[in-house]
């Protein structure tokens, strides 16, 4: 199904912290097609001095009583111009929202377990993934690392879906202190190879570490990468990442159409 471009209205903007917010956009038609791990390209619709759209994972798909999508949300973290504007957005503002784009995660079914690994705003794709896993009855865990207690969001959402939570913070203010890969590594020690699918999203060094851990424990691993994207449709070749897939020597592929979700074992990390 081709992506569509919705002139969406900001329905709500919930600020979670000084850097994070959740923006609700009236892009039901995009939500209706979105699979976990896919993204949208967003741009303020009115007189913005930014030119290009920016990529965002679809965080939640909001639904009415009948389960029909009514809106989507984005989990936004301030990083620069557009993300600042999304942080400050007021209800009523317009956002052009193009999607869904990219390859989704591959959900697994029991007896496989699904372990999600999120770093910071890398939590974004996992709300929809957790929902989809729950609806299939797949057992799921979320390893969730953040800078501090103040930046751990939506834990209740995952708890409600029956996801086992393992939290780490850099400052030790909640859960284990340090990187999220440490508890992941330990927990994988007790799992037979090939029984666990690992889904990761977060900063690339974290993704590389997770992919390494997964490989050592011989588990499958899908990572979602965040390269700078100019178009999201394969048109500009800006978003490339080096992969090792099959016979050819390592080469650049466009992460917007070959990804953003990749088999972690195939990526050649910088």
């Amino acid at each position, binding site marked *: 199904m081709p992506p569509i471009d919705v002139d969406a209205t900001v329905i709500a903007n919930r600020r979670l912290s000084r850097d994070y917010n959740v923006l609700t956009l009236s892009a039901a038609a995009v939500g209706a097609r979105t699979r976990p791990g896919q993204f949208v390209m967003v741009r303020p619709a009115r007189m913005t001095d930014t030119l290009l759209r920016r990529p965002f994972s679809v965080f939640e798909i909001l639904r009415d009583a009948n389960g029909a999508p009514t809106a989507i949300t984005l989990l936004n973290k301030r990083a620069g111009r557009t993300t600042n504007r999304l942080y400050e957005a007021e209800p009523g503002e317009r956002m052009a929202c193009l999607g869904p784009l990219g390859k989704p995660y591959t959900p697994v079914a029991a007896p496989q377990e699904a372990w999600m690994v999120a770093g910071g705003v890398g939590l974004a794709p996992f709300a929809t993934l957790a929902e989809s896993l729950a609806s299939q009855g797949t057992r799921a865990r979320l390893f969730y690392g953040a800078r501090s207690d103040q930046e751990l969001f939506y834990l209740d959402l995952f708890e409600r879906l029956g996801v086992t939570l393992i939290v780490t913070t850099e400052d030790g203010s909640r859960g284990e202190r340090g990187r999220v890969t440490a508890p992941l590594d330990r927990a994988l020690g007790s799992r037979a190879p090939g029984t666990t699918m690992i889904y990761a999203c977060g900063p690339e060094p974290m993704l590389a570490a997770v992919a390494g851990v997964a490989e050592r424990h011989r588990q499958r691993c899908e990572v979602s990468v965040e390269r*700078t994207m100019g178009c999201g449709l394969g048109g500009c070749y800006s978003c490339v990442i080096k992969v090792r897939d099959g016979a050819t020597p390592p080469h650049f592929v466009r992460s917007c159409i070959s990804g953003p979700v990749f088999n972690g074992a195939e990526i050649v990390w910088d």
Partner: protein
Amino acid sequence: MARDLSVRIGTLALPNPLIAASGCFGYGLEYEEVADLSALGGVCVKGLFMTEREGHPPPRIVETPSGMINAIGLQGIGVHRFVEEKLPRLRERGARVFVNVCGSTIDEYVEVSRVLTEAEGVAAIELNISCPNIKEGGIQFGCSLIGTAQVVSAVRKATHLPVIPKLTPNVTDVASFARAAEDSGADAVSLVNTFLAMVIDVETRRPTLTNVLGGLSGPAIRPIAVRMVWECAREVKIPVIGMGGITDARDALEFMLAGATAVQIGTANFVDPFVWTKVLAGLDDYMARHEIEHLSDIIGAFDPTPPTPVHA
């Protein structure tokens, strides 16, 4: 009144003047779901060498005020894979395929053009003698009148397809390059390619792009591009294909009034992949308002007489 948007580039008839710019539309097929490729005037595919090229390591783009800089480095699948894997499907979709041809040497331009001439379904060859992002070839030819003449003459001999050298704006007198191209047998010229530019990250004191330098495109450059198209269109008789920052029908019309027979849209396609139908609708609306039957009538219709005072 049936409105006729068709234009001609030499022997090549296009249903309308809107062509996807090279490097901004992949190989066209990436957009087959969002755009009816046959409804575009043409699709100019990403620059091709004889063999595959890896391109530069990312970051490859950076946004700038009303523009962007790219240093993709002509990542590409090479002309043979293009002919085998992409061209048949583009033909199937009814696209008029312009191929942007690159070379490190004159021979390579000729070789690539020859392969394309033997293939079926190529509408025209755009000679990329203006890419600012690669070490050899490209802009080296495009910044030298002799280089331009040599590449064009050599390719001219090797193909019956329309040959359209793409000019760089990074020169003092772009019209002299259009003239050199015409004199060497070009069927048309296209311009502008991107402006050499850079952005420094002041926090790290390092470049924002791996390649340090890249090419500036987008609305920021449009007023310069329009001027250059006007200069070229007055200098040569062959058609001029204009581009640089076109985002809507007004912009496309501006280039056509300045003398462009057709226009290409690059960066704006990233901002809005549905731009094509919008610009077509805008052209149609303009023709209706101004009672223009044949869009080609406005090519070069710019009248440089000073404006009547705005405040009247």
